[in-house]
């Protein structure tokens, strides 16, 4: 994405009207360019007036604090498992989960043909960019308790952009699962603090799921996925 294209996106960025991938691209550009940062800050300041206008001065709901407190209680990895998925109700309404592993998850899939060119500082950036630009490649956002982007090339080589995932304890790891022919197979053990992680999967992929497992990963998961995405059709 060029500087001009980033500049054109700043208004939409300020209003949260961009995709997760575009938001990443804009924010990386803002880190590198003070002029863009200054304009973005001005536009965000305007959007914050709209937000402030929407937000009433009222007391915080008492009943919610107990829920939040339970969620932040140790052990550190526990909250991710115990957490009530934010989109569960919407998913239930949609009746969208047809594959066993996603039975308890919400599904939001954004299929995009997206350029990813502002990951230059990452050593795998050019490989991610090349893959995303190939014909037949897809970029999707897995969502649930957290969100994570996955780029999958037509040859089955893909990348998880896990740099925004919260760090886990050292005895835990993120693990990526691919849904292939109604089977759920491990696509990679990503570690406790993943950045950009390559993986390979053979066969027609119907979707991906992300779980938190014990360090080293597992052969088959008994955990609820913390994010999932299905390919439509």
């Amino acid at each position: 994405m060029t500087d001009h294209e980033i500049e054109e996106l700043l208004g939409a960025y300020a209003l949260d009207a961009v995709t997760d991938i575009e938001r990443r691209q804009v924010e990386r550009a803002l880190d590198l360019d003070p002029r863009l940062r200054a304009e973005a800050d001005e536009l965000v300041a305007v959007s914050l007036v709209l937000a402030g206008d929407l937000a009433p001065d009222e007391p915080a709901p008492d009943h919610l604090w107990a829920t939040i407190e339970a969620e932040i209680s140790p052990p550190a990895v526990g909250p991710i498992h115990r957490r009530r998925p934010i989109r569960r109700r919407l998913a239930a309404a949609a009746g969208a989960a047809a594959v066993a592993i996603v039975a308890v998850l919400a599904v939001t899939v954004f299929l995009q043909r997206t350029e990813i060119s502002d990951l230059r500082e990452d050593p795998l950036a050019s490989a991610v960019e090349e893959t995303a630009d190939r014909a037949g490649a897809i970029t999707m956002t897995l969502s649930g308790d957290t969100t994570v982007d996955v780029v999958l090339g037509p040859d089955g080589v893909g990348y998880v952009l896990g740099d925004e995932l919260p760090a886990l304890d050292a005895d835990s790891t993120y693990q990526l699962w691919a849904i292939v022919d109604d089977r759920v197979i491990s696509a990679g053990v990503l570690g406790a603090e993943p950045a950009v992680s390559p993986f390979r999967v053979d066969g027609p992929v119907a979707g991906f799921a992300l779980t938190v497992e014990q360090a080293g990963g597992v052969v088959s998961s008994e955990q609820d996925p913390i994010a999932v995405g299905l390919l439509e059709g």
Partner: protein
Amino acid sequence: MPRTGDHDEAALVAAAHGGDSAALERLYRLHGGAVHGLARRLLRNEALADDVTQEVFVRLWRRGDRFDPNRGTLRSFLLRDAHGRAVDLLRAETARRSREETDGRRSSAVAPGPEQEVWDLVRSDHVREALESIPERERQAIALAYYRGLSYKQVAEALGEAEGTVKSRIRSGLKRLQGPLTQRGLTET
């Protein structure tokens, strides 16, 4: 620059991020109502507003290092986060409705809906006057994006405009809004 009182909140955020649940509770008591109210007005659903509020404060606990007091108040930081999470849910709902329209009837997945719905969300006369002062097409694009949670691509589809045109209108509209809002002392910068 941080303002008076912001230092206290920054210290509370740091304490919460360091594992002090009492600090997080204090921040929740200070800002939870505004976060919940914003989410409830956008989503028109109490339970989903609960989810958004919970997520915003758990994220503050886990990723409090993302808050920089030099770049704005904590309230603004939390409201921006809440808007982003609420928009995620609005888009998921839009996508669900779109998937349900599979009976051959071709209709827009993101019909704009009555403009009155958007105007009902605007509470302050100052904000309303500022929005009314900019060209209608810019106002329409901003309203659909911000109050209805549509992406600029969805706004373009809903309005039958090119994506580039919508991006430009949102950007120029926000710049145009800056003047009247700043004059009324409503912006932070």
